[in-house]
């Protein structure tokens, strides 16, 4: 696993931080690599802008910050406006397609979209949208093994919600396996134009 910078951003309450914890734990404990997760949040408990930065590598991470992310996961419009432009050319952008309208996208990016919140609601609890997103992330980026991330999900959520979160992970993962690189039709609907 080469040094990879990841940003996950949305609003407080979406499980942004936990998503990064799950991925970081998968990298550093279940895959024996190294991961450093830092977070930015405002004084509000919920609803404020929230972002997590995760650096994973096969050697110890010294500089803990993300400067040019290789992968950015965006779960709110505010986060899109703030963070979409910082992606490295050739990087991967993952969006919550019902919450994010894509515009002014520059550079050669791989864009993937998923209605994670809708899927989570269909599973019975909107709260697990982050596990849907983590599953989707795992499938489309292939950065970490599905086995490692799945174990990490199971280990990171409360026992009574374990099964539901694993279902959510599987849902996102399966959707990701079939997702196409480039511009899937959903993206055109939200205004994505490839340059």
């Amino acid at each position, binding site marked *: 696993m080469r040094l990879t910078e990841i940003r996950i951003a949305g609003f407080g309450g979406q499980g942004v931080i936990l998503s990064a914890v799950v991925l*970081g734990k998968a990298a550093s404990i279940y895959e024996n690599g*190294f*991961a*450093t997760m*830092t*977070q*930015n949040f405002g*004084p509000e408990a919920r609803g404020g802008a929230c972002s997590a930065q995760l650096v994973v590598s096969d050697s110890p991470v*010294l*500089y803990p910050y993300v400067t040019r992310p290789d992968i950015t996961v965006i779960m709110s419009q505010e986060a899109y406006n703030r963070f979409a432009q910082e992606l490295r050319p050739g990087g991967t952008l993952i969006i919550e397609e019902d919450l994010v309208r894509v515009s002014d996208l520059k550079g050669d990016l791989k864009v993937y979209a998923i209605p994670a919140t809708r899927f989570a609601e269909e599973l019975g609890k909107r709260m697990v949208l982050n596990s849907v997103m983590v599953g989707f992330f795992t499938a489309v980026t292939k950065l970490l093994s599905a086995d490692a991330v799945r174990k990490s999900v199971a280990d990171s959520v409360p026992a009574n919600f374990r099964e539901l979160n694993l279902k959510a992970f599987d849902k996102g993962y399966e959707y990701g396996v079939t997702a196409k690189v480039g511009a899937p039709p959903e993206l055109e609907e939200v205004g994505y134009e490839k340059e």
Partner: protein
Amino acid sequence: MKADPHGVLTGTHFIDGDHACCEGALAAGARFAAGYPITPSTEVVERFAARVPMVGGTFIQMEDELAASIALQGGVWGGAKAFTVTSGPGFSLMMEHIGYAAMTETPCVFVDVQRGGPSTGLPTLPAQADMMQARWGSHGDYEIIALCPNSPQECFDLTIKAFNLAEEFRVPVMFMMDEVVGHMTEKVVIPPADQIEVVPRKHTHKSVEDYLPYATNGDMVPEMAHAGEGYKFHVTGLTHDERGYPNMTPQTQDKLVRRLQNKIRIAVDRICLFEEDGLENAEVVVISYGITSRVAQRAIDMAHERGLKVGKLRLITAWPFPDKKIVELAARVKAFVVPELNLGQMVREVERAAAGKAKTFAVSHAGGGVHNPEEILRAIVEASRC
């Protein structure tokens, strides 16, 4: 002595610095904490409050930081290892009782997860601007020890060290984290209890008749007896003699206050920990601590790519300040570069110890984020040319 296995969460964890600090305290044997939760330190006591009842200890959420910082000392004199946790605004309120702990030689740990100040400042964002306050915040002459972790793993390891130093020297130890280190999540390996060395309370072995609360031998650290054990027991912030009785003479004051300083000063070489790299051929040495040391490392790597002869000195112990190391380096390097998340605190100590033998370049930052490594690189380049 080995750690009590009940408090040790042996295993590999992916946790933040605050949680790691809590686990370090539990492993070190802390069984009492009094606190008034404040961002970005809240997670330490939140976890402690959940964990400590399972290992036979107590957490009390006090009415404010003054109460927290004195309740913990009651816990210590009752026989527990104890600590409190706070951030800038709370740390300010604790100053009086840090002096009290120094004067009464109460072994305890104050964790300060530094955030932007002054006053309420930036609750959720980092700074390293309490470094001088940690050393000089209370009135009168005294010495403390301060440690600066730069990773969650060190938050665990060095919290144990902080408790051990507190017990060995009977001194309040300041554990100077910062918001980034506190909220940064990384792998933390907690070893089995039998691999963790803890220093027990320096309890007297003397009989009740022979015991003098503040009499010392060669190491200048008196032996302790707890309340209710039958020993003479008198704890006071007033200047006191060996019996613990108030005594207002200049002679008693001189003897006591010099001992409070000297018990730390004679052990400076043992207390001062640092990490160094590439100092042998260095022309410029970057001195940093806490989160800034990790940002500085990137700047050092960039300087190496340009062929500059740059070494690294990371202060793990900030107080007592490692004068000897700086004096030795100042005699053979051109300059020091000191980045820190304040407008110039530890850099003044470097400048003082260097005494003009090497130049000193501050790379200040008011807090709220960390340095851009380029800023530190620019200072390194400038220092190399001097």
